[in-house]
């Protein structure tokens, strides 16, 4: 839901400003990175004492709260700082992240890279049938990519689960992967455009007011689209 909602709001906020230029794409990515990075870096700085404790006592900071163990080293820290963990290694995205919760931020930034590429081709007026058709197509793609990930997964990969969990490792396998989030992101783009088409942003003050509550990061909604 997070990915759908994020992309839908992003589409509504940025659709009227999107340009087919590399400069705009780079500017957009820098803007999103600047939005996410400072608080992530602060959160990561809280982990520095954990490095020393792990070095001394051999136990990492994960404790009981998560099901996998992190690789607490400098490469992992750098990967976490720039949201790169989880892009290359299909099945260890969460394990390589220093702050485990960064898996979703990493996936989000990965989707942001796709956004400038997709926003203009998908920016069109749709009728309801086409809207439903496109959403179902992207949903099928999501299921297909999820199945492919499972198909290509290392055999009997358990994410540190005991065999007694009887295959429950399927969940993190799909949940933490960044690549199968792109179709969800696409569904969000299409829904965002459909909302823009049917939503009378400029007609009703109430719409604008309520959307500005939700889209507090999208000031575009508070003024008329140019």
């Amino acid at each position, binding site marked *: *839901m997070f990915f*759908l909602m994020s992309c*839908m709001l992003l589409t509504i906020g940025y659709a009227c400003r999107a340009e*087919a*230029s*590399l*400069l705009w794409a*780079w*500017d957009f990515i*820098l803007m999103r*990175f*600047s*939005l996410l990075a*400072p*608080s*992530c870096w*602060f*959160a990561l700085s*809280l*982990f520095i004492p*954990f490095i020393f*404790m792990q070095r*001394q006592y051999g*136990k990492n900071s994960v*404790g*009981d709260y998560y099901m996998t163990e992190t690789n607490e080293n400098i490469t992992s820290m750098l990967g976490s700082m720039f949201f790169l963990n989880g892009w290359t290694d299909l099945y260890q995205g969460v394990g390589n992240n220093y*702050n*485990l*919760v960064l898996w*979703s931020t990493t996936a989000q930034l990965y989707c942001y890279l796709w956004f400038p*590429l*997709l926003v203009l*081709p998908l920016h*069109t007026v749709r009728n309801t049938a086409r809207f439903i058709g496109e*959403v*179902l197509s992207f*949903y099928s793609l*999501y299921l297909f990519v999820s*199945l492919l990930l*499972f*198909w290509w*997964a290392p*055999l009997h990969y358990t994410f540190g689960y005991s065999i007694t969990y*009887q*295959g*429950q490792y*399927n*969940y993190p396998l*799909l*949940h933490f992967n960044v690549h199968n989030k792109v179709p*969800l992101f696409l*569904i969000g783009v299409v829904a965002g455009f459909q909302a823009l088409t*049917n*939503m009378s942003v400029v007609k009703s003050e*109430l*719409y604008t007011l*309520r959307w500005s*509550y*939700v889209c*507090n990061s999208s000031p575009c909604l508070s003024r008329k689209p140019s």
Partner: protein
Amino acid sequence: MVLRVQQLSLFVKETIVGYTIHGAGYTLRLDLELALPPVFMLWLYSFTQAPTCLAYRWCCWKPFLLMGKYSFCIYLLHFPIITYYAWARFGIEYWKTSSDATRLYAWEIIPCFLIVSAVAMFVHHFIEEPSRDITYKALSKISSIFIKWDSEPLLVLINRTCTKAVSFINATV
């Protein structure tokens, strides 16, 4: 190949049959994660079309809006703060002993949540908001030194190709 088929059949079994056998837990979460995206999409889309509906007004309740404002910081900080909490509660034993010996009680979610919320508010107001523009300007300045935009933008070409492909599909279908 046989092993791959076995693995895929395990996936299907765990997704469809596993729910009925094991009940809730990760299997159920997997089912919901695969099944619910279109439902969520419809829900969100309905909000854009009917902002006066009860569900939307409920979502615009002030505590929820506040929670939404600080949600990113709460999300980012909950894990280190919980670890610090456990460290403070168990002392050095937290790092020395096994995880089972230093397990928090369920009720401790309340103080943890309060601490996380307070720290998240602080981080949002004093780090996230002020440093957003500073980071953006600094990164733009750095990138302008290394990247020149005089060359033919690749994205124009890609976008043109995608648009043509979409038009072709529209015309064909």
